[in-house]
């Protein structure tokens, strides 16, 4: 369970406040206009943006001041999710141990994770030798071996075509279900929301509204959301 208690983030003249609870295993979309603070909200949860006040807890553990690497969180950014100079084995392996001294058992886990996302036998390839969709799959394989209770996606599939993006969202949904992870996902596309999310957080006017069930919110959007969806 992820809770944001009276959270307030300030960056210069920009401010964002949030107060919410997300149950374990839910898949939550974060939508809202550009610059409203969707990525900032994820930044606060992942530890890149220190909040001005308030508290973030994950499963009743206070993680407000924890360093990004110490949080039980895995995250995909818009781009640069793989190190181009490392093989897929190494890239995925970094999710298991930073020193990359992998035991045979761990190597087997990495291989099976790569096979799970459809990259069987590509362990020794580098990201440059893969297509955009395959790169996304490799990044998801790392998420799989990291096996963290909270998964944050900051529009990692925005550059993919519509069919490929749907494919990736389905894969994300399956992986989240398998690992039981809670998913928090920034997106611009209403169809993504309908495809994957149980609940929706609408970010607008300096406020991240508490999540509401997708069907309720998208069928009957409040005026601000209606204006955004157009």
């Amino acid at each position: 369970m992820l809770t944001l208690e009276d959270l307030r983030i300030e960056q210069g003249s920009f401010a964002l406040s949030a107060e919410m609870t997300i149950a374990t295993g839910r898949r939550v979309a974060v939508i809202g206009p550009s610059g409203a603070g969707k990525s900032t909200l994820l930044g606060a949860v992942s530890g890149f943006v220190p909040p001005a006040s308030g508290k973030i807890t994950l499963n009743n553990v206070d993680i407000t001041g924890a360093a990004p690497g110490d949080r039980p969180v895995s995250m995909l950014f818009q781009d640069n999710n793989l190190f181009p100079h490392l093989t897929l084995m190494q890239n995925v392996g970094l999710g298991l141990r930073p020193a990359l001294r992998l035991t045979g058992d761990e190597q087997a886990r990495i291989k099976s994770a790569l096979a799970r996302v459809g990259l069987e036998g590509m362990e020794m390839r580098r990201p440059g030798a893969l297509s955009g969709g395959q790169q996304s799959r490799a990044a998801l394989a790392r998420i799989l071996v990291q096996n963290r209770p909270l998964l944050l996606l900051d529009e990692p599939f925005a550059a993919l075509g519509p069919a490929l993006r749907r494919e990736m969202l389905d894969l994300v949904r399956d992986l989240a279900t398998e690992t039981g992870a809670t998913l928090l996902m920034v997106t611009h596309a209403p169809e993504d929301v309908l495809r994957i999310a149980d609940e929706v957080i609408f970010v607008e006017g300096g406020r991240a509204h508490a999540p509401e069930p997708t069907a309720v919110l998208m069928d009957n959007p409040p005026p601000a959301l209606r204006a955004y969806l157009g």
Partner: protein
Amino acid sequence: MARSAQPVTGRSGLIAAALIVAVVMLSFVGIGLRAGPGSGLGPADWAAIRFTLFQAALSALFSVVLAIPLARALARRELPGKGLLITLLGAPFILPVIVAVLGLLAIFGRNGLLNQALALFGLPEVSIYGLHGVVLAHVFFNLPLATRLLLQGWQSIPGEHFRLAAQLDLPPRMIFHTLEWPMIRRILPGAAALIFVICLTSFAVALTLGGGPRATTIELAIYQAFRFEFDLSRAAFLSVLQLVLAGAAAVLALRVIPDIPMTAGMDRKVTRFDARGGLQRALDIAAILAGGLFLLGPLTAVTLSGIAGLVYVPATAWQAAFTSLWVAGLSIVVMLALALPLAGWIAIRDKGSAEAVGLIGLSASPLMLGVGWFILLNPVADPVALSLPVTAVVNALMALPFALRIIVPGVRDALTGYGRLCVTLGLTGLQAWRWLILPRARTQIGFAAGLTGALSVGDLGVIALFSDPDRTTLPLQMYRLMSAYRTEAAAGAALLLLAMALGIFWICDRGGRWHADT
């Protein structure tokens, strides 16, 4: 946006900066211990000050003025061999000064090609020694630098402007007036200031081509006071003089000194529609030919006479070559140990102002550092026994400003692109260096290491100050051969030295790029 969390800290960079400042400050302490008020400035000191300033000003003036036609020709003309010439413009960075001096002697010296040609026509011979020789050598080294700076300026003029000028059918004079001159006026003062500061602390050129009461720089006077008179307090006093002069000039020039271009500098091609033929074309070709001859002539002469002279290279020079190799190796290690943490520190800051630390090594002249450390070490250890490590450290400090300029952008790119990924994966500190920064910045690190190694292997500076026959580097040994008029042996040693400098640069640069996947 989320730049607050970084995988590396600035702590080790701060330690490196503190070390550098300590090395420089301690040498000041050493100098301060011995430099008494004395009898003030004597006539010889005034002559040295005058000569230092005068030759630096002339060198800067000639370098930038001659660079204008050359850069203009290179910017607007497509000719076979142009790429080679632009590559050659980068060579002075890794060319040992003493090798270039030998090459210049082969062309402009007493028995050089120029005097032979003059003799054919029954004209009196010209001497390369003295003011004009010093200036000539400085122009040889700094004309390429000025040309590269100006070429960069030409590249910064948008191609649309030249297309517009062609549309309006502006004559060359108007194009120069409206497009090129404003750019030149912007770049030239900085280039001239940079060259002026570089030439203020020039030692090897003054040692070989200058000398005597009429052509002694302060740096050379420090050497003479130290080496011939062994007058430590006078050497220390002259060091203070040098520091005041070079420091003041550096501080004044710091505002106008441009970024030194470290790449070949012709990455963007601007098609030119003007000045296609006639006089303009002839002038450009003449400028490129003259520039090419001026740079290539001495190098060719060194290579040709060096091949013939290789068999005369004495065993002592081969021994010195080995010594030079490990001094260069040590210098690379010291440079990396300082530059990498510093680069990490600078890269995580928003502005690169910390690069100023690297510049300290430049405004403090090598001989001044040498004198200071000699005075400090003398009571506790035999400075001569430490001459090689001291040389390596001073070389590393001299290379540091350039190395930082090369490495910092690589580290910054790696951190901007992948810093957050590192942090989410818990890769911090040494792990981040191991998995992110070193692999991503290896081409820049290899390039910087190559420059440092070449600079160090060819350096004739602080080693001349306190060496003995057993501990010499190849440049010093070559200088001794030249002084003993063993011309063939010196030529052979020059070729060996040239090959070593180019070889070290090539190996490091290649090593950085080898299998570099992006």
